[in-house]
């Protein structure tokens, strides 16, 4: 056993615990290397079935946290505990079973899929990769299972054999969610999944996320720059600024009683927009 401070409470209900996570990038030309601390000693945990949102301006390091949690990046220091097992530095063979338990959905779903694939091929891709890495042979997804997954995310199963070129932005985002659900994961890391969508599509996908969480007890790590939208989806909100987690608290606490300047700044812009909107909606009735 490692003698880490977080390992003593094994009966914790938290599915994900991140402790002291740091990640540095080296940038600049060969002869003028600059080390940038993208994430600096970030710690948080997410109880099973709950949603933690990491918010912050672009460049605050929130996406790097997401990429470390899904082990697309290997963190420099710190622990990432899934049900008590540290996955921060294990090799890819040991990581394989965890890859099925943690799935990531990106911002622009269209670019994260092979454009020549049909909906069915997109959905079954993770299963093929998983079964191949475990048993060495392909186990295709049954049509019934694909049908269920498509229905679950609100797509017509009749479109199973249709090329994804014919899918709209919102439909591709639904398909991305179906693909993420193929392996029946416990944790979904949603990196700006709702940005870049039209308002009504955004609302549809947000509702779908709430619905899927209620149905399957999924745990979400939500990465977003949109504090207003996130406050409708998250139990806990963490605010990131310059690579550090500067404030973390319940959604109510963060939106009603922020303490850090970065949180106040994010909230101020939401409130400006809100007061503009309520002013214009009240005009004439007051």
């Amino acid at each position, binding site marked *: 056993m490692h003698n880490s401070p977080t390992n003593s409470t094994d009966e914790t209900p938290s599915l994900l615990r991140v402790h002291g996570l740091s990640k540095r990038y080296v940038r600049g030309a060969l002869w003028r290397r600059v080390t940038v601390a993208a994430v600096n000693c970030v710690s948080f945990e997410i109880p099973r079935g709950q949603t933690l949102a990491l918010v912050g301006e672009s460049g605050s390091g929130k996406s790097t946290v997401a990429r470390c949690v899904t082990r697309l990046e290997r963190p420099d220091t710190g622990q990432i505990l899934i049900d008590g097992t540290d996955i921060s530095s294990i090799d890819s063979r040991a990581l394989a079973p965890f890859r099925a338990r943690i799935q990531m959905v990106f911002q622009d779903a269209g670019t994260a899929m092979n454009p020549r694939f049909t909906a069915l091929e997109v959905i079954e891709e993770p299963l093929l990769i998983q079964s191949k890495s475990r048993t060495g042979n392909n186990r295709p997804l049954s049509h019934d299972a694909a049908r269920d997954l498509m229905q679950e995310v609100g797509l017509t199963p009749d479109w199973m054999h249709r090329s994804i070129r014919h899918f709209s932005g919102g439909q591709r985002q639904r398909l991305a969610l179906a693909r993420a659900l193929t392996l029946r994961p416990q944790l979904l890391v949603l990196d700006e999944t709702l940005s870049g969508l039209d*308002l009504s599509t955004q609302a*549809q996908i947000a509702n779908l996320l709430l619905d899927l969480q209620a149905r399957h007890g999924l745990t979400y790590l939500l990465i977003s720059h949109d504090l207003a939208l996130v406050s*409708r989806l998250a139990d806990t909100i963490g605010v990131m600024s310059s690579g550090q987690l500067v404030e973390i608290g319940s959604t*109510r606490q963060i939106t009603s009683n922020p303490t850090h300047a970065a949180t106040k700044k994010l909230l101020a812009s939401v409130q400006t927009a809100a007061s503009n909107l309520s002013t*214009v909606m009240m005009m004439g009735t007051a």
Partner: protein
Amino acid sequence: MANFVQIRDLKVTYAPETGAPVRALEGVSLEIARGEIVGILGESGCGKSTLASALLRLLPPHATCEAGTISIDGRDLMQLSERDLRAIRGKEVSMIPQDPALSLNPVMTAGSQISEVLRAHLPLTAKQRRERVMELLREVGFDSPEEIYAAYPHQLSGGQRQRIAIAQAISCVPALLIADEPTSKLDASLQTEIVALLSRIRQQHGTAILVISHDPSLFAGFADRIAVMYAGRIVEVGSTAAIFRKSLHPYTQALVSIAASTLVSATDTKAPLPAIAGESPDPTCVPLGCRFEPRCAERMEACSIRYPAEFIPEPARLVSCFKYGE
């Protein structure tokens, strides 16, 4: 008495090499007065960006303007030669792009890119141009314009790049500025700054601004009037206050309630948001009647048979829906 900008019954069709032609604009009419900020509210594929391109006569080659007129300051844009159009673009009518990261030249400094616009349109000496660029950089909110002048786009943040694009667009003090989703790629705090900057530009120079967005909250406290577009048609027009306070079309009502729910009631309950079911119609086979009918909660028998006529319930107000009118 003609308005400053007058778009009448504009019909634009895209004819791709493969596949069926798509009617992007189906008889759009819109007027913009001098110094007025008009918001176009609509979602992807509704034709709002086609409208913006048409206003600059910059439609791609496979698009044809089948009918309609566009006049700016009394001149019929459809009759102008390419040479005349070049003199207008960037000088009298200019555009702020959605993503300045894509529109700025990566190997030119910010200052020289602004200077380039001035050189194309105004008879200024190199020294005068440089002074004017510094003035513009200060106007769009840079405290140390010298540094920014010499910076390359990759050395600037997203918000700074958007300011450079705005400085470029206003360099010749245009009478009409078209802003296509000017803040959709920016953080929330930058959005309010850019909106404030555009409002200030209007106030100082009397510039008319056509702002395009899918998010009604962008227009609150900013636009004077809003035109709501759905699937190639304008379904409702009204003052910003009227659109927010008493929207008439079911589509507008739904959009406003979604915007209000994510902003005003920032509650801590994980409750579903109001949403519109379904998707925009396939542009190659739009419904015969009202285009919003398949998604509308208040659909009636007439809705699927013919398109509702425009109804003017009060001055400066317009709606196309069978709920209103005779």
